[in-house]
């Protein structure tokens, strides 16, 4: 908390012009990808490029204008990076749609994704307009914790819950299916941050020392531990490995940042190893993931069960793509099942190559860096913790999904933020960005100092009053 001195030295500029400049480039990335897909697949620039480009431009410029009006000091890099990722994702999904059309299995994923993006930008604007000060959220610590758990429980309810691909994490509302876990992660960040702000002193200082770790008192750790165990238990019950990993890491990072005790990382690491080992022996679906990761080719062909068909095809695709990719239209990304959602990184690797995958990873790195930076310069502890939490949500999610697709770690299903097809994830991520922009606006706004004159003046004033009353 006390290392702000170097950052306090200067006043941040608004940088809205820089944001607009980057947004134009981001639109070039999005619309350029759409045009390149048209040229590569159909041999011509798509006829609806003006309408499509206009729609995208309208959305992001609208978001930019709202930022200018209500959050003038917000970070200038976040919105353009997000717009570029979303635009690139839309184009790649459109490319996979076209490939499906070619084999007579049309599905308008890209169009649906554009609708979700519109909704996401709408909620982004609403969030910025409704939450003028992020500290208001601190009042809803327990409410959002409870709401998160209710949301996580919804898919188990028989009426509206749906099981897709073995994971019971969707709910069905009319024509839409929705993944409540995506919203729950935002609410859990707020709940953890609100709780830890009030109790971090007690968590860090009071308690007994066991081995190398200061164990806090049960009444300090109890509520948050309960909240976390309930959400983790629900996810394990629903066979949602990716989200369990996400919530576990999120909780650990926030606890570490709040208490400044490295011991938590050791305890958490041991808990993770223990939990993973236990899960390996208890659950069949965890064991098969691990075995596929170790020996992908033992499960590849149909006779062997075809369980690793998807990750192996993804690796073939990325290998075929090489350094600069096959080019849009020359690859075969739809060989990979779910290429438009979990495996979108492999589609990018196949048609745009390692160069583009590295650019995408850089963009995620920039999002996380800006969020952590916001957290460093933020002046209140709640904002700091929320920003760290949201940054780690992005970081863990990208690590888990890209690591899984590239074979670095066992594959667990999570969406790639902003790229993957998936409405709930896209909408929730836009709201996360709105929250980050709100916090960074508060943090970068020049400090309202009480100058010497005012202080002296008010001191005199008080003395006069004192004299009169005496």
């Amino acid at each position: 908390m006390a290392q702000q001195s170097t950052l306090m030295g200067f006043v941040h500029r608004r940088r809205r012009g820089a944001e607009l400049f980057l947004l134009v480039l981001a639109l070039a990335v999005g619309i350029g990808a759409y045009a390149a897909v048209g040229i590569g697949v159909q041999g011509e620039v798509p006829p609806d490029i003006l309408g499509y480009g206009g729609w995208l431009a309208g959305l992001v410029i609208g978001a930019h204008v709202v930022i200018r009006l209500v959050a003038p000091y917000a970070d200038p890099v976040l919105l353009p990076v997000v717009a570029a990722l979303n635009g690139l994702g839309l184009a790649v999904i459109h490319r996979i749609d076209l490939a499906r059309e070619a084999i007579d299995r049309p599905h308008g994923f890209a169009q649906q994704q554009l609708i979700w993006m519109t909704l996401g930008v709408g909620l982004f604007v609403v969030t910025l307009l409704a939450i003028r000060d992020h500290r208001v959220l601190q009042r809803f610590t327990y409410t959002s914790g409870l709401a998160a758990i209710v949301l996580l429980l919804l898919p188990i309810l028989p009426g509206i819950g749906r099981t897709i691909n073995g994971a019971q994490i969707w709910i069905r509302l009319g024509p839409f299916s929705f993944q409540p876990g995506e919203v729950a992660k935002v609410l859990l960040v707020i709940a953890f941050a609100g709780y830890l702000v009030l109790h971090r002193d007690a968590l860090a200082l009071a308690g007994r020392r066991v081995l190398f770790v200061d164990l806090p008192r049960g009444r300090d750790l109890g509520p948050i531990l309960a909240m976390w165990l309930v959400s983790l238990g629900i996810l394990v019950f629903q066979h949602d490995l990716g989200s369990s990993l996400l919530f576990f890491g999120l909780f650990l990072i926030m606890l570490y940042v709040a208490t400044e005790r490295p011991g938590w990382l050791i305890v958490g690491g041991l808990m993770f190893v223990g939990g993973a080992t236990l899960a390996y022996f208890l659950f069949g679906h965890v064991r098969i993931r691990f075995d596929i990761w170790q020996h992908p080719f033992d499960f590849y062909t149909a006779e062997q069960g075809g369980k690793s068909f998807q990750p192996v095809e993804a690796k073939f695709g990325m290998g075929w793509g090489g350094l600069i990719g096959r080019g849009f239209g020359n690859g075969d990304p739809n060989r990979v099942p779910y290429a438009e959602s979990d495996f979108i990184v492999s589609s990018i690797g196949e048609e745009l190559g390692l160069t583009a995958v590295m650019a995408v990873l850089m963009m995620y790195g920039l999002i996380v860096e800006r969020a952590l930076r916001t957290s460093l310069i933020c002046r209140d502890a709640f904002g700091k913790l929320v920003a760290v939490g949201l940054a780690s949500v992005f970081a863990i999610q990208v690590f888990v999904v890209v690591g899984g697709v590239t074979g670095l770690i066992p594959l667990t299903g999570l969406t790639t933020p902003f790229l993957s097809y998936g409405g709930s994830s896209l909408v929730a991520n836009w709201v996360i960005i709105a929250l980050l922009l709100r916090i960074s606006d508060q943090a970068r706004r020049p400090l309202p100092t009480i100058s010497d004159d005012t202080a002296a003046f008010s001191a005199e004033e008080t003395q006069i009053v004192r004299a009169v009353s005496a």
Partner: protein
Amino acid sequence: MSELTLFLIRVAYLAILWIFVLSAISVIRSDMFGARVPEAARTGGGKAPKPPKQPKPGKRRTVPTHVLVTEGSNVGERADLSAGPVLIGRGSDAAIRLDDDYVSTRHARIAASGDQWFVEDLGSTNGTFVGTVRISQPTTITMGTQVRVGKTILELRK
């Protein structure tokens, strides 16, 4: 469409992608190094703004060592600043425990940032005042600045 055109389009697109990433990085860079340093911080050599002259005009740049209650039911109570952030409130975990009905259990916190001192309201019911202004975010205070919580007034002292 010829192979060459497709190849050029692919390379051009990758170039756009990286131009975007690099411009974003250059914006971040200019954000860090191109920022204005306010006049006061530059001339003051980054030191805290001068404390008001009334207590001891001779010693300006001295560092406060404790918080003192100067008015209210707990006059004379003090808390050492060297032990880290000072919590002010009615609760038993506060560094300065005030018997003031208008003070919340965890009312405010005084903490250091570099060589500046900040007072931060912790969501109290009746608010924390610096001078006559009710603060809504952490506010710098200097020696002798009167911080009012409830009916109590606190000051940084050397």
